[in-house]
């Protein structure tokens, strides 16, 4: 039987999940389909930086102001997802002095608060800063957990009556008289299909927005820019540290709980499904950023990761609303489809605003007059998102210490009971990798062992609880390991080289997993 819904949202990143919640709060029921998993694209592959706006004061004053407003709203309404750690902008000897001199005025013009502090104070606040600093400003940056944010948004939408299907890929649109009548969706795990009959379709597929639009016969020119980031083993600074210069590569260090995230780069890639962080980029990031933070040369890195930003060359076409240059909201009426909208581009910090603008357009098209509530309505903390928080698992383990509980992930102190909580919350896996799902929803695999030990232990637990049978668990473990490996290769020197050798000694030397022929072939697209 075909599924009827008011709005079909394609894409489960920050924008898609934020839109599902926005519409649900207006009384519009949605179905969200995501071809992989929540935040599998750029929404998960970024710094986790809640921009104060100061980074954009020179390049895009409007974006700067939006960031300032949106970061204030999020700090108020989703405190569980945010660490209001504050930030610094610092310049080092050799950085362009005109930019430094104009910075305060540019911030004032964009209403972005920035307070000049002396270099001594800056180095007391953050001792990792170079002794070659020439200027420092304090700003209102924060750190955001993008996984928790999207999961909390989605959980709220679900409690309000919307639905979501992961690993569900749109394959075709049935268009009659300028209108999408039905959408065919492939369940990637079972190979089965289902058909959705929506009043309106929103394409929130991020870097894949061009692919989705093309399926409907619409054209969006999307270019792909890959950004690589490095995660340090320890948290190097309390605050976000930005290089006080024209936005460039390797100029931001963001705290993420117990670690720091350093990046990023911008490299054109041809295909959003085939990219990986490289040794050369990792070296380039460190070579550049150590001028600001010298200890980056000798720090231990846990892994590298990358995200692909969609760059849309057709911006704002067919829409006359107040759309920032940072994102593209496209009404495909101009492509002869009246009930199809694309939202793409933008920043994590302004995802709510993007969702609001999109929902406004959607509502005007389907005749809904309810106002947007996401400026005032808090995002409830959900069980779906809670275990992604660094430090949450150990705190909970200490608080609720049960003598019979076991710590399955020793690096990040994730207990068996926490894993069971996650398993209870993801019952509809439809044959998707349970281990990968746990990885996305918790700190499992994120510590120094990068899954080497906890991957094995969690796999054993999945067999014990009947979540996997036959050789399936080993196949999932191998896929999980390969996924972690992608991010390890660029940073394998020093202690991580030792850790990697230990893991290979265990997986290959001891367990012969490389000789074990079984592989996961159902997770298309995600474990390539």
């Amino acid at each position: 039987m075909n599924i009827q819904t008011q709005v079909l949202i394609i894409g489960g990143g920050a924008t898609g999940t934020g839109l599902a919640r926005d519409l649900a709060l207006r009384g519009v029921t949605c179905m969200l389909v995501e071809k992989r998993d929540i935040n599998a694209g750029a929404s998960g592959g970024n710094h986790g930086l809640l921009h104060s706006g100061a980074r954009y004061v020179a390049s895009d004053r409007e974006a700067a102001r939006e960031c300032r407003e949106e970061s204030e709203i999020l700090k108020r309404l989703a405190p569980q997802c945010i660490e209001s750690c504050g930030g610094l902008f610092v310049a080092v000897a050799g950085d362009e002095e005109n930019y430094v001199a104009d910075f305060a005025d540019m911030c004032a013009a964009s209403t972005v608060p920035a307070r000049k502090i002396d270099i001594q104070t800056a180095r007391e606040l953050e001792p990792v800063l170079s002794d070659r600093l020439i200027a420092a400003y304090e700003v209102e940056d924060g750190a955001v957990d993008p996984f928790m944010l999207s999961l909390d948004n989605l959980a709220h939408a679900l409690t309000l009556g919307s639905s979501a299907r992961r690993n569900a890929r749109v394959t075709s649109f049935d268009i009659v008289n300028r209108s999408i009548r039905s959408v065919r969706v492939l369940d990637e795990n079972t190979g089965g299909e289902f058909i959705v009959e929506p009043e309106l379709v929103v394409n929130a597929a991020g870097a894949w927005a061009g692919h989705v639009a093309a399926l409907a016969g619409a054209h969006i020119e999307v270019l792909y820019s890959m950004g690589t980031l490095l995660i340090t083993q320890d948290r190097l600074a309390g605050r976000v540290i930005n290089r006080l210069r024209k936005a460039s590569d390797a100029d931001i260090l963001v705290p993420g709980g117990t670690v720091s995230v350093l990046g990023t780069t911008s490299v054109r890639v041809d295909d959003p499904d085939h990219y990986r962080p490289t040794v050369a980029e990792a070296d380039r990031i460190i070579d550049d950023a150590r001028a600001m933070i010298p200890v980056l040369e000798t720090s231990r890195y846990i892994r590298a990761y990358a995200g692909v930003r969609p760059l849309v060359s057709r911006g704002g076409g067919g829409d006359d609303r107040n759309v920032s240059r940072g994102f593209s909201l496209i009404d495909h009426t101009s492509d002869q489809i009246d009930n199809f909208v694309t939202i793409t581009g933008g920043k994590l910090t302004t995802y709510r605003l993007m969702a609001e603008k999109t929902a406004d357009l959607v509502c005007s098209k389907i005749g809904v007059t309810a106002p947007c509530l996401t400026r005032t309505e808090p995002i409830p903390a959900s069980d779906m998102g809670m275990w992604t928080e660094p430090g949450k698992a150990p705190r909970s383990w200490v608080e609720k210490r049960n003598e019979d509980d076991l710590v399955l992930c020793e690096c990040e102190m994730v207990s068996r009971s926490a894993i069971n909580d996650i398993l209870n919350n993801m019952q509809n896996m439809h044959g998707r990798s349970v281990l990968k799902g746990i990885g996305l929803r918790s700190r499992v695999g994120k510590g120094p062992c990068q899954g080497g030990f906890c991957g094995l232990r969690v796999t054993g637990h999945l067999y014990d609880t009947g979540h996997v049978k036959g050789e399936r668990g080993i196949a999932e473990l191998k896929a999980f390991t390969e996924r972690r490996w992608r991010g390890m290769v660029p940073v394998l020197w020093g202690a991580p080289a030792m850790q990697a050798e230990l893991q290979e000694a265990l997986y290959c030397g001891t367990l012969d997993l490389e000789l074990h022929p079984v592989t996961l072939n159902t997770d298309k697209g995600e474990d390539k």
Partner: protein
Amino acid sequence: MSREIHSCDLMVIGSGFAGMAAALFAAQNGLKTAQAGSTGGIDFSTGFIDLMAVHPVSEGTVWDNPFEAIRAVSRDCPDHPYARLSEDEIRTGLDAFISFLGSHDIPYTGDPDANVRIVTSAGTVKPTWRVPASAWNGVLALREKAPTLLVDFHGLKGFSAAQIRENCAPVWPGLKSVRLPFPASRGELYPEHMAWAVSDPRNQEALAASVAGHDTDAEYIGFPGVLGLLAPMRVVKRLEEMTGKKIFEIPTMPPCIAGSRLRGAFDRGFPDLAVTTFTQKMVRQAVRLKNGIFEFTVGTGHGATTVRAKNAILASGRFFGKGLTADRQRIRETVFDLPVTQPENRTLWHREHFLDPRGHAVNSAGLSVDESFRPVDENGIPMYNNLYAAGAILAGQDWMRMKCGAGLAIATAYRAVQEIVSKN
């Protein structure tokens, strides 16, 4: 304060399989031997002694006869350390090593000239050369596809009998599993504590009683590898008497008790052989005096000792053993800063896929040696006429993929010691 100076014929740097074997063979040959090293490969061993099983790794070809595999790899990969060894040396070295372990309560079993197949804690089946006698019934049970009950315990993580059962089902349908409480314990259990507990006859009785009644048709019962800390066969025999079943162990996830048992055997055996051991101490500095004698600083601070040695064997392992270290630019040897044969740059170290059958180039990096197992420079000239290398630090091998770790370590250590003995 003048530091204690210790003089010896041979300094063995490293306490993994290669270091232990080198110290053992040297002492047995009457060399005055010292040994230093911290936790190494032996602590992460499952107790299985691999000799050689897979070649070429890119094909994943598994050999039944390890000596045929050694001949093949020696022919195809002339830089492989096995290519410098005779079959006789390899057999003699391994026999001596295994016989020493047998005389210290860790008897080994295997087929005369064939690798055996054994089940791992992940449920995979792997080839190996010799297994501790306490694991041998597991080889037989798998071979016979015998009705077998596999036990695991509440509170012991990383060992799932259900996982092993599920993965072995296609080749071993008669394998069943049960999870039981461990005698007199609850909460999280650690293999070391369990092994101590099982050494107590009362707990052995409780264990035997708790398996009684579960799958009475089973001929064999398998346990996680925690059946006693020092002498597993005593516990195995006792459980066999009480249950009337054939008993075996499957090693738990490393670091496991099998590794502790090996280390324990050397800790007990070396004093009688007059090996001077600097346990958990690393060689911090190496200087070569004008007369060719090596002077080593072992340990740090007040606990540091100076060792003067006529010869040295570098058996310090790879990255995990700290024999090699890497920065962003290159791989270095840590004690003497010897030349390391390695790929041109870091982009070539690792492949895109962790489990790529061809293996990673970084794992074949290491020390190139001459016919006498002395590390050489770029021109093939020995760096020092009294410095030898053995084990995983050697270039041209990939022990993890070829399944030759322990065998290579023991056989190259044997050869290095023979070179020193024949000089004297």
